[in-house]
């Protein structure tokens, strides 16, 4: 096995294993803490896919910002663990079935489809290529995200603030 293959299997195991802890743990803070290795495992997969800029952003935003936001939200509601209450509803069987069916369907689609390998090569320096793309072809997307961020900031402040 090549180094890349070993890295892939280890990272996939880390991602899926911590993902399993996230969805099954009874303790909410354990769930949130397990998000970090899940996100870092996905980061490793991005790096294997030559997307190092996306990987850096993933750590900065997901592991560094969204996890903190989620941990804050957990501590602001119910005061933490959530061990006092039931975390699972009555749909465990249905949920497992739905998830298994979805996974099976996606895996069948992924393995049966004959993906055509594209031509061309990835640019070696991704931040530069992404910047070029944002400022040339995708300029509307670039400005659009700032509007989306502005609106979500305004909306979230409006919702979260105490009415007084």
């Amino acid at each position, binding site marked *: 096995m090549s180094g890349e293959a070993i890295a892939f299997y280890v990272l996939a195991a880390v991602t899926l294993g911590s993902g399993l802890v996230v969805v099954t743990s009874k303790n909410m803070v354990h769930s949130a803490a397990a998000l970090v290795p899940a996100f870092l495992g996905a980061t490793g997969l991005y790096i294997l896919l030559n997307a190092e800029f996306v990987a850096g952003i993933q750590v900065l935003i997901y592991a560094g910002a969204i996890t903190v936001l989620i941990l804050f939200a957990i501590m602001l509601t119910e005061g933490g663990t959530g061990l006092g209450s039931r975390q699972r509803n009555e749909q465990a069987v249905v949920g497992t079935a739905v998830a298994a069916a979805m996974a099976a369907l996606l895996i069948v689609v992924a393995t049966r489809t004959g993906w055509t390998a594209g031509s061309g090569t990835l640019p070696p320096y991704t931040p530069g290529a992404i910047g070029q793309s944002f400022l040339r072809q995708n300029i509307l997307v670039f400005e659009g995200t700032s509007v989306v961020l*502005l609106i979500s900031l305004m909306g979230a*402040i409006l919702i979260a603030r105490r009415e007084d």
Partner: protein
Amino acid sequence: MLLDWGYVAIFALVGAGMVSLPLLIIWLISPRSDYPQKFETYESGVPTIGQAWSQFHVRYYLFSLVFVVFDVEIIYLYPWAVVARSLGAAAFWEMLVFLVILVLGLAYAWRRGALEWT
């Protein structure tokens, strides 16, 4: 490029090992006592009442909310900064529009009092 990150992965793994090494040493050599008061939560010498895991004020959330939005804005500045000088004046104006919208958000948060620690 993968080689770079292979190095980083080894740095993280070996580093985790080196950070855990002192923990292993204290697990091996540290004295153990059977004295339950020692394992009490420290609260200035007073017996602890209740759990520390209690509810916090919403202001913490408001700050982290504004932080997340600004953090996301900054990730768009990194690729821009790399290519801006080669693209010339157009890149500057495009970024100015982006930043003005960002500052509008800050001004809104300021006016709504989301930046006050009340």
